[in-house]
Every structure is written in C-alpha cells, then in structure tokens.
C-alpha cells in the first residue's frame, strides 16, 4: 500500500468515525507438486484445481491432502453448489464443465459451447461460465441460456474473462484483460464496472461474499477488496504471489487465496 492509499484510508476512517475492518495475514499453506488455479472452501475442506496435473485436490483446512481426483483436462476456477455439495469444474482444454458429486463425474449440457471455460459460478438454478476465448459469459438457467458480453473494451464488453461470481441477483465477472470487474443483472443488463481505475494488472479471480467483492490482481501481486458499490476498501499484498482465485468463509471470516506464483494457499483473517 503506498502513502497516498494509507492517507486515504486514514482520512476515511477518521471521517466516518468507524473502526476500520482489518484483514490480517494469518498463514501460508505450501503445496508440493500442485499448481493451484482455482480454490473453494466447503464446510470442512479446501478444494484446489491443480491445473498442471489435470486433477482436483481435496485438502484439510490445515493443508493435509485428503484426496486426489484425476481425469480433468486443465481444470480452472471451480465453483461449489453448497446446497447439494456439488463441485463444478471448467475444463479449459476440453471446452466442458464437469459436475463432480460424491466421487462421480458428469458433464454439464450446454447449447452454447465455450472456447476454454475459465471459471464457473452457481446460484439459485443459474450456472454462469466465463468463456475465455469467446469473450462472453454463458448464463444457463435450467434449459435456457443467454449470452452476456462481447469482445471489446467498452462498458459491458469483455476481454478474456476468467472468473464469475453471483451475489444477490447480480453477476460479477473478472474481466481479466480489461483489468476490471463487470457487473450484470441476471438478464444480462450491464450495471457497473469496478476497479478500472485501480491499476489492476489482469483480474484473474473473483469472490463476492459478506458484502465484499474480492479481486485477484495477478501481475500486481495483490488482492483488492471493494464494497458492493465498487468503492475500494482494502488492498492486501503480504505474501501474495501471482494470485489466481480466492474463497471467503463467512463462518470464520477467513479468506483463502490461491497463490499460483509460489504454489501455495494464503490465509487472511478479518478482525
């Protein structure tokens, strides 16, 4: 964080009279022979997509490997349907989204095929897929599909999207090479852009939870935290090395960051 940003937060804190939310570096979980891209936490475990080894890795919250699940072709930013404990795995190489439940794998049926699906999100019967080379989002709702975004740099356009997240009937997209987050409603109407003035250098991963929007800044080696309106609240840098994805646990206020750069998981805690 530079001097201007510290000054800004100090003035903001004094001005509002609020006690600042503090995000504290908690610990690092080193990963051996694992190349993490996507990360998600369920109740008791962490799931990591190990892209170079074409598998999913299930870890305990302290980092012990519980299970290795092969057979995924370049798995990327994964999602979890918490209601039925089902994982959704975008396969970058196979142009498919795989559904992983109770050790069994099936394939999500799509009318519009993505060209390298990079991220997926699920919410109330909706499934959103970030179509990396298609520069669009495929939003599936039961049998219907709509396409959101098109290749470009204008408001509402997308340029190599890598991840998606739902929050309260809004769809947040990590618009990687436009260096921002694009937000749409579930009909595909563009609502707002977040982070385009904050010097993000490839927005690879997104998580929206507990009224926060978390964004990984891959080359900036940062995680930026916004409120739902898009106001920058915090910048995390300690220990962050080419982050690709993150997962927030509301229960114990822990933020897990997939550190692609040094093959580790970082844990931050909200105080």
């Amino acid at each position, binding site marked *: 964080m530079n001097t201007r940003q510290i000054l800004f937060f100090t003035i903001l804190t004094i001005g509002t009279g609020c006690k600042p939310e503090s995000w504290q570096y908690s610990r690092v979980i080193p990963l051996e022979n694992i*190349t993490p891209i996507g990360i998600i936490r369920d109740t008791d475990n962490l799931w990591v997509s190990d*892209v170079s080894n074409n598998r999913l890795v299930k870890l305990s919250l302290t980092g012990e490997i519980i299970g290795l699940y092969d057979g995924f072709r370049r798995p990327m930013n994964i999602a979890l349907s918490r209601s039925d404990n089902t994982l959704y795995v975008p396969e*970058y*190489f196979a142009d498919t989204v795989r559904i992983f439940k109770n050790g069994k794998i099936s394939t999500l049926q799509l009318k519009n095929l993505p060209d390298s699906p990079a991220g997926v999100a699920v919410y109330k019967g909706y499934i959103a897929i970030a179509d*990396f*080379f298609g520069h669009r989002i495929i939003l599936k709702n039961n049998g219907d599909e709509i396409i959101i975004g098109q290749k470009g740099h204008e408001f509402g356009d997308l340029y190599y999207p890598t991840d998606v997240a739902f929050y309260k009937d809004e769809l947040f997209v990590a618009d990687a090479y436009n260096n921002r987050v694009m937000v749409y409603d579930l009909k595909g109407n563009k609502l707002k852009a977040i982070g385009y003035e904050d010097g993000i250098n490839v927005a690879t991963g997104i998580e929206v939870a507990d009224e926060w929007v978390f964004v990984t800044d*891959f*080359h900036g080696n940062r995680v930026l935290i916004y409120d739902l309106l898009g106001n920058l609240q915090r910048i995390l840098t300690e220990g962050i090395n080419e982050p*690709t994805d993150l997962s927030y646990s509301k229960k114990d206020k822990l933020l897990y960051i997939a550190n692609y750069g040094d093959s580790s998981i970082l844990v931050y805690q909200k105080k």
Partner: protein
Amino acid sequence: MKKKTFLLPGLIILLISLVSQTSFAQEHVKQKELKYAQVKVYGMACPFCAYGLEKKLKAIDGVKKIDIDVENGIASLEFEKGKVADKKTIADAVKKAGFTPDSIIFMVELPEKETKP
C-alpha cells in the same frame, strides 16, 4: 549403332535412379531432421494465456507434445514423424490464442532449457 542403342536406355535408367535416390535421401533427411519447432511469443504471462496457447497449438495436426516456458516466453512443439506443420499454421494457432508470434524455428533436437538465475 547397336552399342549406342543399349547405352542410351542404360544412361536414362541410371539418371532416374540417381534422381529418385537423391530426392528420397533429401526427403528422408527432411523427415528425420525436422521434428521440433520453437516459437517465441511476447506477452505470455498468466496461466490462462499459457494454457490457452497450449490448447491452440495442440490442435495443430501432427503435434505430439507441447512445452510452454512462461518465464522465457517460448513454446516448444514436438511433431509426429513426418507431420511437421508449416510456419503459417503455427503462426495462425498463436494468433488464435491472442498473441503475436515472433520467431518460429524448426530443429532436429530441442536445446537445453534456459533458466534465469
């Protein structure tokens, strides 16, 4: 006159044989030698780009194996015997992945990987 009649077909056969042997030898050398290609690509850094490039290059007919060196921006391709793609095919695949290809070099063997200190 009789001698000349026998000599001419003999010379023709010898010539055809030499020409076909030479072209066979050239073809043989060509196929034997060109098995690898290295592409220098600028701007490749994030894993989504690297694996995207890998996917597009792998779609080329005859590609057996690919190694992406993100740090040095080099994609190395190994081809099946006699199935070496031409420069344009490789360049098009690189462009499909969103990059501009720089140099494309064909070789018999891949050089040792450069590692930065």
